[in-house]
C-alpha cells in the first residue's frame, strides 16, 4: 500500500521483493518453490519484528510523520458513526488544520476534535500541514463548551508539527489562544480523552491536549520542541535532529515512564500506515475502555483528578536543612 519507504525498512522491502519474484517464478514454471517462499516469509516476519521492536527515537519520528499514516478524519470514518463536522470559531474564520464535530461512538454522542494533516501536498496546503492558527484553538474551545453543556465526552486526536508560526497567527494571539485552552480544559465539566495519533508538536499539540486520560500510539511522538528545532538551537546544526530526537525523550515508551501519559496503544507490525483498519480497531478498543472507566466517577471527581494529575507533573530537588529530597512524579499519586 505504502509507496514511501523509510530507510530502516529497506531490508524488509528487499526480502518482500524477493518473495514476490519467487512467487511469480513458481506460478510460471512447474518447479514447486512453496517451501522456499514459506521460509522466506517467516524470515521476513522475523526481520520485521526485530526491526520494529528495536526502533530508535529518530525512526519513530519518521513513522509518526509518515504521510500514509491515518489522520484524524481517517479514524473518524473508520470507528465513528454519523459524523457532522462543525465549523468556525464565530470570531474570525474556520481553521482547516483542526476539525471538530459530533458523532456516535460506542452508541453514545461524543465530541471529537483533532488536528488534520493531509496525505499529499495538495491536501497539506489546504490543511496548512496540520498547523493551526489561533482560530483553530478557539473553534476547539467553542466545541468543547458545547460538549460540556450536554455532558458529551470529548475525544481529541493530536497530530501536528506545532501551532503555525506566522504573522497572522501572532496578530490574532496564538499564545493567548493556547493558554486559554489549557486553562479552560483544566476545568471543563465533562470527560476528556486525548490520543496522540502521530506528531505531538509542543504547545500546538497541548492546546487541545489537556485531558483526564492521555494516550499515545506506539509510534507516535510528543515533544516540547521538534528534533530539528532543538538541534538548531543546541547543536547549532539542523542535521543533528537524530541526536536531538534521542535526547528529548519523545517516544511513547519514554513518556509513559515519566507518568505524563496513561497508556500506549499498540500499532500493527510495521506501523499504523500498513493497516488503517487494524490500528483503528485498536484505537477504538482503547477509547471505549477509557471512556467506560471514566464513567465510574462523578464530573466533580473527574475535574478534581484532572487537576491533581497535572499538578504533580515535574521533577526537581529541594534542599532543606542539608537534606536532599527528590520530589516529583513519584509522589504524584492522587490523594
Amino acid at each position, binding site marked *: 500500500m505504502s509507496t514511501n519507504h523509510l530507510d530502516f525498512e529497506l531490508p524488509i522491502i528487499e526480502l518482500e521483493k524477493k518473495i514476490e519474484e519467487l512467487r511469480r517464478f513458481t506460478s510460471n514454471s512447474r518447479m514447486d518453490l512453496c517451501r522456499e517462499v514459506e521460509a522466506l516469509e517467516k524470515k521476513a516476519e522475523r526481520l520485521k519484528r526485530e526491526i520494529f521492536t528495536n526502533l530508535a527515537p529518530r525512526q519513530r519520528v519518521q513513522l509518526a510523520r509518515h504521510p500514509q499514516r491515518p489522520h484524524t478524519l481517517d479514524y473518524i470514518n473508520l470507528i465513528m458513526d454519523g459524523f457532522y463536522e462543525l465549523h468556525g470559531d464565530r470570531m474570525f474564520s474556520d481553521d482547516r488544520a483542526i476539525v471538530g464535530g459530533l458523532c456516535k461512538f460506542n452508541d453514545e454522542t461524543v465530541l471529537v476534535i483533532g488536528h488534520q494533516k493531509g496525505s499529499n501536498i495538495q491536501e497539506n496546503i489546504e490543511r496548512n500541514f496540520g498547523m493551526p492558527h489561533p482560530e483553530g484553538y478557539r473553534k476547539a474551545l467553542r466545541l468543547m463548551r458545547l460538549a460540556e453543556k450536554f455532558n458529551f465526552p470529548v475525544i481529541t486526536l493530536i497530530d501536528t508539527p506545532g501551532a503555525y508560526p506566522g504573522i497572522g497567527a501572532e496578530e490574532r494571539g496564538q499564545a*493567548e489562544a493556547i493558554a486559554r485552552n489549557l486553562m*479552560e480544559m483544566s476545568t471543563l465539566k465533562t470527560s476528556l480523552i486525548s490520543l496522540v495519533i502521530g506528531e505531538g508538536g509542543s504547545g500546538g499539540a497541548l492546546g487541545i491536549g489537556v485531558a483526564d486520560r492521555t494516550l499515545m500510539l506506539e509510534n507516535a511522538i510528543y515533544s516540547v520542541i521538534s528534533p530539528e528545532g532543538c538541534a538548531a538551537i543546541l547543536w547549532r546544526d539542523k542535521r543533528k535532529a537524530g541526536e536531538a530526537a534521542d535526547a528529548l525523550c519523545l517516544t511513547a515508551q519514554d513518556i509513559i515512564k515519566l507518568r505524563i501519559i496513561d497508556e500506549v496503544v499498540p500499532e500493527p507490525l510495521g506501523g499504523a500506515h500498513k493497516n488503517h483498519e487494524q490500528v483503528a480497531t485498536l484505537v477504538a478498543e482503547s477509547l471505549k475502555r477509557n471512556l467506560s472507566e471514566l464513567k465510574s466517577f462523578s464530573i466533580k471527581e473527574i475535574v478534581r483528578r484532572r487537576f491533581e494529575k497535572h499538578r504533580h*507533573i515535574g521533577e526537581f530537588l529541594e534542599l532543606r536543612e542539608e537534606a536532599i529530597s527528590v520530589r516529583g512524579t513519584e509522589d504524584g499519586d492522587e490523594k
Partner: protein
Amino acid sequence: MIWPRKQVERTNGLGMRCNDCGEFILGKKLEKMLKVCPKCNYHFRLGARERISLLLKDGTFEECDSQMTSHDPLNFQGLELYRDKIVEEQKKTGLTEAVITGEGYLDNHPIVIAVTDSRFMMGSMGSVVGEKITRAAERAIEKRLPLLTISGSGGGARMQEGMLSLMQMAKTSSVIAKLNKEKLLFISILTDPTMGGVAASFASLGDIIIAEPRALIGFAGPRVIKETIHRELPQGFQRAEFLFKRGLIDMIVSRGELKKVLSELLDKF
C-alpha cells in the same frame, strides 16, 4: 521553545551603550533612570532581583522555595550536559533557577510575586519554574492575596526537560483557573522577551496584562517565523506596541511608572 536572542551588554567601567539607539549612558545616570535609555526610552533587561526591589517596599520581600533546583530528570545530553549547564548558569547569575517567588508589600498592598529572569537559561520554564509559579499561586489562594507575575522568558518551555517542561504549561494554567474560581486578582507583566511556552500559558492569563515598552512578546520566535514564511517581518512586529494595537494587552507602562500604576490598580480591588 524559541530561538535564543542574545542581548549584548555593551559596557565599560563608566557606563553602557543603548542597545537600540547606541547612545552612551553613564552608569549613575542609567541607575537613576531605572535602566531606561534617556534618549530613546529603550528598556534594558533587568534581573529578577532588580525588578523585585523596584516594586516592593524595602525589607518586606520574603522569598519562598529558594532552594529548589533542577536535577536533570532526562539525563539530557546536548553538546554539553544539562546538569553542567545548570551549575554554569547558577554561577553566572547567582540565581538557583530562572524564577524568584515570594511575598512582599507593594506600597501598602501585600502581594504574592513571581519574577522570571531571562539571564538564567533564557528564563525558560522547566519543572522548577513551573512548580514555583504554581506554589506562588497556591500561596495567593491560601492567603487570599493578589498574584503578580513578571515574565522575562525568551526560552519558553525548557527543552532539556522534554515533556516535563511542556506539561508545566498545563500545570501553571490549571492553577490560574483555580485562582479565578477563588476570585483572586492576577496581574501579569510582560517584559522583553516573553515568548513560547511562557507566553502560551500563565503569562497570557492575567486579569490585567501590562507590557513594558517595546518588549518582544509572542508565541513563535521572529527567526522561526521568517524562516517559515520566507518574508521580511513588518516593522515593530511582536513588540508591545504591536500587541497593544491588536487588543492583546491592556496597557503599556514605562518602568518608572509601573509601581504607581500597579498600586493604583490594586487600590480598586
